[in-house]
């Protein structure tokens, strides 16, 4: 059987993948000020990976990105619970966030917020969950 050549798809994915991932990172980081956040950002990253899966097969993608997505989910949960529980160390209630504005020489004024770490947890969980589901179903005979 002749192998079907997906050259156009494979080439365009190589370009698109970075744009989508970049956009998802943007959406994630901008979440506190503009529409977006961990959830949609994570979904979009997962979407990029799904495109990769569609273009190549599961084994190739697993070779390129040797992640165990279940561990990623666990890490995400750990981030979320860690940032929430961290506040206890400072003698404030659970899930009290802290933020500050820092003047960084090159980047200018930067606001640092522990909510971002929490959101990062959400991001990881969403990526992990979506990829676990899709991969598991995909591998199933």
């Amino acid at each position: 059987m002749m192998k079907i050549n997906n050259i156009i798809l494979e080439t365009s994915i190589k370009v698109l993948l970075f744009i989508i991932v970049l956009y998802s990172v943007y959406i994630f980081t901008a979440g506190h000020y503009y529409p977006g956040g961990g959830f949609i950002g994570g979904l979009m990253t997962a979407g990029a990976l799904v495109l990769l899966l569609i273009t190549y097969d599961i084994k190739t993608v697993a070779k390129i990105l040797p992640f165990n997505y279940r561990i990623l989910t666990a890490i995400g949960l750990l981030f979320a619970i860690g940032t929430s529980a961290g506040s206890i160390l400072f003698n404030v209630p659970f899930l009290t966030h802290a933020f500050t504005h820092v003047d960084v020489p090159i980047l200018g004024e930067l606001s640092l917020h522990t909510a971002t770490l929490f959101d990062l947890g959400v991001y990881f969980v969403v990526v992990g969950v979506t990829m676990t589901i899709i991969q598991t179903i995909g591998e199933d005979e």
Partner: protein
Amino acid sequence: MSYLHLAILAPLLLSIFMPFFYKRFHLIHTGWFVLPLPILLFLYFLSFIPITSTQKTVTESFNWIPSLGINFVAKVDGLGLLFALLITGIGALVVLYSIYYLAKNKEKLNTFYVYLLLFMGAMLGVVLSDNLIVMYAFWELTSFSSFLLIGFWYEREKSCYGAQKSMLITVFGGLAMLGGIILLYIMTGTFSMTEIMSQPNEIFHHDLFIPALLCILLGAFTKSAQFPFYIWLPDAMEAPTPVSAYLHSATMVKAGIYLVARFTPIFGESSVWFWLVAGVGLITLCWGSIFAVKQTDLKAILAFSTVSQLGLIMSLLGVGAFALHYEGLDDNIFTAATTAAVFHLINHATFKGSLFMAAGIVDHETGTRDIRKLGGLIHFMPITFTISMIGAFSMAGLPPFNGFLSKEMFFTAMVRVTEMNMFHLETWGISFPVLAWLASIFTFVYSMILVFKTFTGKFQPEKLDKKPHEAPIGMLISPIILVSLVIIFGIFPNLLSDSLISPAMAAILPSLLHAREAFEVHISFWHGPTIELFMTIGVIIMGLILYKTYPKWQKIFKVIPEKLSLNHVYDQTIKGSQTAANKLTNMYMNGSIRTYLVYIFAFLITLLTITLMWKKAFKLDSGNVSFIGVYEWVLAILVVVGSISILFVKSRMTSIILLGAVGYTVSLFYIVFRAPDLALTQLVIETISVALFLVCFYHLPKLRKFETRMRFKLTNALISLGVGSVVTAIALSAHSHKLFSSISQYYVENTYEKAAGKNMVNVILVDFRGFDTLFEITVLAIASLGIYGMIKLRLNRGKE
């Protein structure tokens, strides 16, 4: 914790060590380790006689649950002491008997004595507890240990049947009694018997008086095997004979008698009490004695005779309650009925115990208890014959045995009922002595059958498994002691009157006594030529005639069909309730999810509609409604058209796509209503779920891959329309009823000030209400692991 508490709990404590004795000293019969305890307890309780015979009581209290008023209060008065002596005395004799009756190597002696000791302790607890809840606890323990003892040979089907039956009936009554106790608590505010006794007037005029009375009596009647609850007792004869002798003749079945006697001061003045206790007692007496004649099994005869004798005591207690209608003791003719009840209680324990033991000996030495196979045993077992004869003659009420005296007193009491002119006794009173006389005749007949069919007549060695011989002396000691008591009490009846009977009566009828007064109990052997004597002579003559002609009228029992018996009713009730419950469950639990959804939604509709109607909550207010633009109209039409067409399309593919269309329209709605985060998420999620639907669709099995339109079902249509309209109505009314403004202003003001963010939705998600998000991502993680687990872990698939 006093010595008295220790005495009550001693059997329970000793029972813990029984398995140890059994394993450690295997060569010695375990019963020898049990035997000292009831003897010691008997001697200990004897030491209370000087106290109770001067109308004093001993009360010891031990805190159990003081906050609820439930304390282990042990109280020894005349009645309690009488029962305690019966329990320990007969207990000691039964243990001695059982040592020779149960083989050391064949039976599980450890369990037997554990159960027996449990029972003994429970029974002591019942009769010596002053707190009703504690008494109830011990009461259930007697039911429970009796259940274990009846089912001792659990590999026999009939034992299990009998045990289950007795359990169901006595626990039913026990629960009713608990209800009665709680009602008494509501009326008086205390569980203490003594305190309840002190306010009889408040109880008597309370609305709950009759329900409490009925509940308590239900407990007493089921335990004491009264009509119609007696049916468990004949089936309980599957227990080992020592158990039958102990539980089902002398002690447990008298717990109901104890209860009735105990509650007489509270309920005794009511006519309901009189009619129920005396009436049911008399019916039980007659019924039991008539059916005892029919039986062919020795223990079955004894079981029915126990039922009948318990009825006798019960009716005497009912009549004895009349004494409460008199002031004081002068000319109080009905105290004699109570005397008779207490006296017969003792007598019955002596002769019935010995008869059961004799029946056990016959069974043990011949291998059968069927009187059709037995006969002519007098030559082989002269001592057993003598024991049985004395016991049976006493039961029949022949002089000079104690049964004669109590029967005379019974007749006296029943004849005196006719002299009363209250509770409709002017017309109905005459039935009392007539029924009593009739029952006595049948008692005479079955007593004769019991002795003479077994020990005289033709010896039939071919029908017996063993060659009969006299029992070993150890087995005979207990019945001989009991039978000697039968004779001693018969000849010297006043031996017990001051020490036991009078204090017991003082406990049953306390309101009749003034300070330092005691009941004068004088039981005389010879009344002179009174009506009672002629009744007894009549009983003997009629009984002899009936016994001689028994084969001729025996057939009369066959006239009554088996279907009308109470056992049949019981069996049908058990079977019927099981099949009915099965049918009911199968009817509504049909296993179809559709049906369950119909139930759930129908319930939802009914409940919500009724609430809306009842609270008059439906309201339509258009004042608060915003302007609807063109976009909204278009999108709404899209959603409606999409949703409705899903119902009518033929192909599943089309419906998946339509579903996706509805989902995307919803995200358009989010855009129109200015929710960009939601719109983004909705778009992506909708895409993913449509993809998942397609995966499912692709994997549908080929076998049933025919495509049809959804079938129309009226119920479904009605239910879905109902749910839709109810939810719409609620949404509209909720919107029209806005009671307070939203708290969203707080978020608008503080999103930047306090949380350093400008996207309010995200700030709420991760900051203000981050706790929810934390668990939502946990839900996601669980869902993904669930999918992973379901797909990867298919251990069973290969094995099928």
